[in-house]
C-alpha cells in the first residue's frame, strides 16, 4: 500500500514537472511586454543564485556573500569578451571553470571555519570583490566595463530581443537544476545532509567534513558564475555597484522566503515572488520598499519554514511555537560559536 502511494506520488511529481516545463517554454507566446520578459529573465537568474545559497546551506554553511562569485563570473566573462575576443559561447564554459578553480583556492581556506565565522568571511569576501573591482583600472574601475557583446547568433536565432535571452536563461537554469539535483540524490548529497544534521556523527562515519564542504563551495561558485556570465552578456555592462551588499541579502531572501528546506523549489518560489511583488506594488511608489519589508518580516516570523514549508507541513502557528522558533535562533548562535 505504502509503495503504491509513493509510486502515485512519483507520477504526480513527474506530471507536475512536465506541465511546469511546457508552461515555462511557451510563456513568451502569451507575453508581449518586453519588461515582463525582463523580469522573468531576472527571476531565472535569481533562482540560480538562491539555489547556490541553498546548496551551501544543505551542508550547514550560511553564506552572506552569495553574490561574490556572481560578480566574479560577470567580470571574467566581460574581460574574456572585451580583451580576448571570446564570444559568449566560448566565454561561458571558461568562466564557469575559472571561477570553480578560484573557489577551490579561496574555499580551501574559507570552509575551515563554520557557523558565524564562515558567514562573516563570505560577507567580507563579497565586499572585497566589489571594492577590488572598483579600484582596478584594468576592470574599468567604478565605471565598470561597458559594451560587452551580445551572444553571437545561434543558427537562425539572434539575440536582438528578450525572447532568446529568456530561453538562454531558462537553459542555464535547467542545467544548474539538473546538476544540483544529481548531487542531492547521490551519496554526495547524503553526506552533505549528514554534515548539516550532525557534524560529530558524520565524522565518526568517516565523512571528511572539510572536503565535502569544499566541494559544495566549488559547485555553488560555479553555478553563481554561470549566472554572472549570462548577466554580463545580457546587460552588456558590468559595474561593481551591481554586486553590492544588498544583492547577497536578496539572494538569501529568495531561499528563506521560498523555504530553506526546499533546496531547489524554494529559491524558485522566492525569486519569482521577490521579482514580481515589488513591481506590482509600484502603484504605491516610494512606500513600496516599506510594504515589501513588512511582508517579508511577516512571512519569516510567522512562516519560518518559508512559503513551501507552510503549505506542505501546514503547521499551526501559535505563541508557544513562535517563541520556540525565536529562542532556537539563540541556541543556533551559541552552537555556531
Amino acid at each position: 500500500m505504502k509503495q503504491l502511494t509513493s509510486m502515485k506520488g512519483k507520477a504526480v511529481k513527474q506530471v507536475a514537472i512536465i506541465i511546469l516545463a511546457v508552461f515555462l517554454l511557451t510563456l513568451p507566446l502569451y507575453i508581449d511586454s518586453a519588461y515582463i520578459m525582463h523580469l522573468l529573465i531576472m527571476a531565472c537568474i535569481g533562482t540560480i543564485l538562491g539555489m547556490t545559497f541553498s546548496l551551501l546551506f544543505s551542508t550547514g554553511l550560511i553564506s552572506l556573500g552569495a553574490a561574490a562569485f556572481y560578480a566574479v563570473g560577470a567580470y571574467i566573462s566581460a574581460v574574456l569578451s572585451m580583451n580576448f575576443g571570446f564570444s559568449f559561447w566560448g566565454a561561458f564554459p571558461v568562466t564557469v571553470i575559472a571561477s570553480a578553480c578560484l573557489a577551490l583556492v579561496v574555499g580551501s581556506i574559507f570552509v575551515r571555519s563554520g557557523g558565524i565565522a564562515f558567514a562573516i568571511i563570505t560577507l567580507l569576501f563579497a565586499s572585497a570583490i566589489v571594492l577590488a573591482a572598483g579600484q582596478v583600472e584594468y576592470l574599468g574601475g567604478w565605471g565598470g566595463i561597458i559594451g560587452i557583446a551580445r551572444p553571437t547568433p545561434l543558427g537562425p536565432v539572434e539575440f536582438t530581443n528578450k525572447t532568446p535571452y529568456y530561453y538562454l536563461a531558462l537553459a542555464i537554469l535547467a542545467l544548474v537544476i539538473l546538476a544540483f539535483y544529481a548531487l542531492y540524490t547521490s551519496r554526495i548529497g547524503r553526506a552533505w545532509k549528514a554534515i548539516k544534521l550532525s557534524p560529530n556523527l558524520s565524522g565518526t562515519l568517516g565523512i571528511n567534513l572539510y572536503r565535502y564542504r569544499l566541494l559544495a563551495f566549488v559547485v555553488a561558485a560555479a553555478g553563481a558564475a554561470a549566472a554572472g556570465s549570462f548577466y554580463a552578456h545580457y546587460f552588456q555592462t558590468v559595474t561593481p555597484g551591481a554586486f553590492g551588499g544588498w544583492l547577497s541579502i536578496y539572494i538569501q531572501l529568495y531561499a528563506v522566503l521560498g523555504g530553506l528546506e526546499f533546496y531547489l523549489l524554494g529559491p524558485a518560489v522566492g525569486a519569482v515572488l521577490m521579482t514580481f511583488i515589488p513591481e506590482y506594488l509600484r502603484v504605491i511608489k516610494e512606500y513600496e520598499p516599506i510594504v515589501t519589508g513588512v511582508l517579508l518580516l511577516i512571512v519569516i516570523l510567522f512562516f519560518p519554514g518559508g512559503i513551501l514549508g507552510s503549505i506542505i507541513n501546514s503547521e499551526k502557528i501559535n505563541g508557544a511555537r513562535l517563541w520556540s522558533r525565536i529562542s532556537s535562533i539563540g541556541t543556533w548562535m551559541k552552537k555556531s560559536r
Partner: protein
Amino acid sequence: MALLEIKNITRIFGGLIAVRDLSLDVNEGEILGLIGPNGAGKSTLFNIISGFIPPNKGKIFFKGEEITGLRIDQIAQKGIARIFQEPTLFMQETVFENVLSGFHRHYRQPFWKAFLHTPAANREETLKKEKALEILDFMSLTSMSNELAANLPHGHQRALAIAIALATGPELLLLDEPVTGMNPTETMGMVEKIKRIRQRGITVLIVEHDMKAVMSLCDRIVVLSLGVKIAENMPAAIRKDEQVIEAYLGKQVI
C-alpha cells in the same frame, strides 16, 4: 599484537588530570569493559581514541599503526566506530536513511560517477540499500524503517545508533553506556545484541555503569579511578578486588 594498544596516555584539562599515564590493550575478538566511578576518565579515554580530543602525552596504535593525532573521520576510516553517550542520530531523517549514511566509507565508485548516476554507481547504491535492510533486521528495527529518528523511543534510538555504527563495518566498536536508563528486559535484549555483534567478528570496548550487564557481557574488565587504571582482570576477580570496592564505595564502608 593487540588490536588496539593504548600506550602511556595522559590528558590534562586545566589543572585536572583526567587520564594519567594510562596503558591498555584491547585484544581482537574480545568484549572489554571499562568501568569506574564518575570522573574516572572513561569518557575522556573514548574521546581520545576516536580523535575528538588529542592526548597530551602517549600514543595509540590500531592494528599496529599509530592513529594518535588523526582526525575523527580518518580514525573512522581505519575501522573504529564510536557510539555517543547521548543519542546522536540524524534526527530529521528516517531510520533507513540513518543507516544508509553509515555506509559512507564503503563506496568505491568515484565522485563523478556518483554525480552522473552511472549504472555502476546505481548498482552500488542498490547494494548498500539491501545491506542497510539487513542491518535494520539484525537490530530489530525493520518495522520502524520509515519513522523519523527523532520519533523513536529512547531504547530504539540506542539500537539505531548501533545500527549506524555497524553500517560503517567496524573492526572495533566503542560503546558508551549502551544500556544506561533501560529497564531490565531492554537491558537483557541489548546484552544479547552485543554478544551477537561480537560473533560477527567485531571487537567491543564498552563503558557501562550497569554492573549486571557488564559482568555478564565482558571477557575482561578494566577499572579506572581518577584517571588511573587500578585493576584489570576477569569479571569474577574484579568483583572481589578490594581496591575496586574501595574506589566505588569509599574506605569507611569496608
